[in-house]
């Protein structure tokens, strides 16, 4: 029989050969996650070839699933165990019909043995009652000594009394031997730092860094505050003038007035007296809210009494009189007036009612 005729015969005979395996539906409930999709009764076998190989060298694992009765659904997948995946690099080669089945079909249709069995199976021309799952495995380590058993989970419609009509079969583990070979000779991989011995101080005992307790933390937080308060007080005691100056610097009015008084030349003349009087007047207006532009000594004393500074009233009165004497009566030479004015401003700035303002 010529080959084209053989193929035509196959196509004609196919419906008669292929089995229509219409069985009961596979229940979804209770379906294991490693379910292969198969329904029927099956036998499981596995083999590995070769069984001795170098590390990282390939071997082929074949898992044969053979129907032991009517097949409602063919197996579609196998879930390999983590143990197998841990020991081997795995490459799936696919699902094939059993060679014996293919050979039988080839004989049936007059094909020579070995003639394109894969083509036949792919075309669905072989009534596959046996399936071969094929994997290429490469052992990762020298101490790998077996291929763990492969699990095959299928639905068995004949288990009528079982609430879970799923069965799992395990193939026997397959012993192998991983030997040292040429291909296993490889260099260590690392940076130069990896190859350096850097164990100086490697005998020290370290603890994980942790924070001290709350009392210590509270103490740490309090220490600077207390220290600074003490420092400030000591500083004020040691340098009272500096402290007073600092206090005054906070009053812009006092600062301006003192600067103005510093410009008054000695001995005091009329212009200097006018300048000093203006500086004092501005200070009193800005600092003590004195509303009069050119206050008389009496008005100033009355205002001092109103704001609680009566103790300084007489001093202010005296100084204003002295200034007036220089401004209007052409008195000269009393350089002490300016110094007294400076002292007065400093003294006023230390008054509690002003210091806190």
């Amino acid at each position, binding site marked *: 029989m010529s080959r084209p005729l053989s193929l035509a015969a196959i196509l004609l005979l196919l419906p008669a050969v292929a089995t229509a395996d219409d069985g009961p539906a596979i229940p979804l409930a209770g379906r*294991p*996650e*490693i379910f292969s999709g198969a329904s029927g009764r099956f036998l499981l076998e596995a083999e590995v070839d070769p069984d001795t190989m170098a590390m990282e060298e390939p071997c082929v694992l074949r898992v044969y699933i053979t129907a032991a009765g009517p097949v409602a659904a063919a197996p579609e997948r196998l*879930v390999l*165990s*983590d*143990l197998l*995946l*841990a*020991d081997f*690099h*795995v490459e799936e080669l696919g699902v094939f019909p059993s060679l014996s089945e293919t050979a039988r079909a080839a004989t049936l249709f007059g094909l020579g043995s070995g003639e394109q069995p894969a083509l036949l199976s792919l075309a669905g021309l072989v009534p596959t009652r046996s399936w071969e799952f094929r994997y290429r495995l490469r052992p*990762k380590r020298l101490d790998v000594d077996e291929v763990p058993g492969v*699990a095959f989970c299928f639905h068995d419609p004949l288990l009528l009394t079982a609430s879970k009509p799923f069965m*799992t079969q395990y193939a026997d583990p397959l012993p192998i031997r991983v030997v*040292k070979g040429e291909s*296993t*000779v*490889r*260099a*260590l*991989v*690392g*940076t130069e*730092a*990896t*190859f350096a*011995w*850097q*164990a*100086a*101080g*490697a*005998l*020290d*005992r*370290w*603890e*994980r*860094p*942790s*924070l*001290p307790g709350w009392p210590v*933390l509270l103490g*740490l*937080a309090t*220490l*600077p*505050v207390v*220290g*600074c*308060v003490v*420092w*400030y007080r000591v*500083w004020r005691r040691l340098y009272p003038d500096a*402290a007073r100056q*600092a*206090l005054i*610097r*906070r009053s812009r009015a006092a600062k301006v007035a003192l600067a103005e008084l510093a410009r008054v030349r000695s001995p005091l003349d009329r212009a200097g007296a006018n300048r000093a009087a203006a500086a004092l007047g501005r200070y009193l207006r800005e600092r003590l809210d004195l509303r009069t532009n050119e206050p008389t000594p009496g008005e100033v004393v009355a205002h001092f009494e109103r704001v609680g500074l009566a103790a300084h009233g007489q001093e202010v009165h005296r100084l204003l009189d002295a200034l007036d004497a220089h401004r209007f009566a052409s008195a000269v030479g009393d350089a002490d007036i300016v110094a007294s004015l400076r002292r007065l401003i400093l003294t006023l700035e230390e008054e509690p009612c002003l210091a806190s303002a």
Partner: protein
Amino acid sequence: MPGVGVMLLLVAGSTAADLLARAEAAFRAAVESRDDHTKAEPHLRAAIRDLEALQARGVRNPRLSLQLGNARLLADDLGGAILAYHEGLALSPGDRDLRAALDFARSRVAYPAGTFARPPTDDLPPWLPRPGPVTLLLVAFGAFALGCVGLTRSRMLASGRWLTVGVGALLIALAGLTLLVMQQRAAALERPLVVVAADDVLLRRGDGLSFPPRYATPLPRGTEARLRRERGDWLQIELSGGEIGWVPRELTRVE
């Protein structure tokens, strides 16, 4: 296994210095055979055994972790190396040698495409110091003290410049303190580290082989995750991307 028994007796009878010296000798012998992994491996195993014996005696420091990590890395124990580097960094978060070693070890992990199974990215530049809690506390305390000094000095001299110094230092102290609190909170919530020690480990939906993989992509050796819970010989882990699943304990290294 008389050989192992003799080895255990030897380890038990050695001082820490002896163990370290022996580990160094074994490590150097392995480096001499660096062109042949098969020849180097027994030496590396011996070095690892001695270094681990040191750790078992309570000796812990960043240098020891670095050396142990290097030995494991050269011996192809990528998971163990990553774990050792992490242990060292827990002791000294700013150790640049450990960080560089961890980066190299991670570069050898065959991560799948995308972000799946990858460790969290560190966006800070490598030269930037990673202060530990004690350093942060010292910085915050120093800044607080400087702030107090600045404010006191500004009070003494009525100086605006000192006021700026004081306020600035107090802000730094506040920032350091905030960082410290965040760090402590994160550390308190952190779960033990799990490193996958085998290739192509599937993250499963449950604690058994019968459970299907949660993701089709298997985890490569060296994947870092956090332990959520344990059940028998199975660990529930969480990847940095939030993916949760179960893996067999024997295929992992746990902190």
